[in-house]
């Protein structure tokens, strides 16, 4: 009975899936650009009916950030649950890191789009970063600020491998309340952050493999290095455009 009427909070999902059923038939032409025709207006009407006092996401202002910060405690709790949930479903540390990376990637695709929209959305000539160095600096400063509220502590280029860059955070906020068991000392929960970085770089078409590593020093026991290994195509393109 509980499922007979969808909860108003789920209205976006239930309505879109309902109204899309009849549009999935493959009767339209089969070219690359063909799409099921856009859903008709009755969908919109039922959304309004489902939640009269709940504005839908298209009516909200994307610039409202004041008072929208999440408390550190709430995030620490959520992230702890994420790690535990993931750990139950994987075999080994590598797998766990990969899963955390995947989860971070989903955050990253949204971070890049929303962050740049907030910065450029009102500009007459919105710009995207196309230079490798400025993209890396943007990740180091703006992305970190948007996600963690502070810039990262350092960015370095690897001496032996020209395709590797490192972003260093002395005290990553997401690991502040995590102590990794001794037998899993390899694990870095910042793989989640690595996933965010990977998505941002992918979005700006600088594909790379991004991993997280513990690099503690006496002063900062939580110090973490996000290692960015760029794909060869990126370096080739940089060389061409010089």
């Amino acid at each position, binding site marked *: 009975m509980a499922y007979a009427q969808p909860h108003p909070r789920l209205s976006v999902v239930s309505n*879109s899936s309902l109204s899309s059923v009849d549009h999935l038939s493959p009767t339209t032409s089969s070219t690359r*650009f063909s*799409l099921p025709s856009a859903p008709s207006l009755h969908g919109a009407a039922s959304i309004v009916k489902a939640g009269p006092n709940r504005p839908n996401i298209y009516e909200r202002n994307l610039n409202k950030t004041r008072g929208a910060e999440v408390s550190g405690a709430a995030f620490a709790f959520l992230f702890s649950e994420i790690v535990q949930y993931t750990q139950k479903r994987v075999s080994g540390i590598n797998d766990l890191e990969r899963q955390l990376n995947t989860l971070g990637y989903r955050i990253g695709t949204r971070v890049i789009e929303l962050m740049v*929209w907030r910065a*450029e959305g009102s500009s007459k000539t919105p*710009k*995207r970063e196309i230079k490798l160095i400025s993209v890396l600096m943007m990740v180091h400063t703006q992305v970190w600020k948007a996600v963690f509220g502070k810039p990262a502590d350092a960015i370095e280029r690897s001496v032996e491998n020209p395709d590797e860059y490192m972003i260093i955070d002395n005290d990553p906020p997401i690991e502040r309340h995590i102590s990794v068991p001794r037998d899993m000392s390899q694990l870095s929960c910042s793989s989640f952050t690595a996933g965010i970085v990977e998505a941002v770089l992918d979005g700006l078409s600088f594909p790379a493999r991004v991993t997280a590593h513990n690099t503690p020093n006496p002063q900062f026991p939580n110090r973490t290095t996000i290692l960015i290994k760029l794909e060869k195509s990126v370096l080739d393109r940089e060389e061409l455009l010089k």
Partner: protein
Amino acid sequence: MSHHLFLLSPSDTPLYSLTHQSTKPVPTVTSPLASNLPTWSTSAFAGTLTALSGASSATQHTTSGAVRVGGGQDRHVIQMIANASLDVIEDEMHKQNLMYLKSVDKFNEWTVSAFVTPGNMKFVLLHEGKNDEGIRAFFMDVWELYVKTLVNPFHTAHTTIRSSVFDTRVRASARKYL
């Protein structure tokens, strides 16, 4: 005057498309090739051939006030022009740091304008005539609507956009600016 909008994911999959008939006047386009065309109207490919050659008058003379069909208005020709412009867009987006690439490509009466978001989504718009400022404003609206769609946790990135509210809003913006 009609407009065709396509939203393409980073892997060039179409996520949304819209055809908008504008009430604003059509600029007269004269295509030199069209007059030299033999009458192939009996051939199965007549529509495509006339369209590719630039004839926009294939079926235009039927009624005066009716919506144009055939010629450069064929659906598959539109899709082909939009697809073909992707190569130019890919080239330009690595050279220019602007998101709005105005008039990147031309094909007969069609001009292709594009907008590349930081997440590498491509908005491709086929239009006739020049309307840089209107198209820019339209793209900015679509971008905002797209960001709102994307941040919804129930929307999986790079999947077809089926929200009816999104559709309504894009249409409203098209009426306003195009």
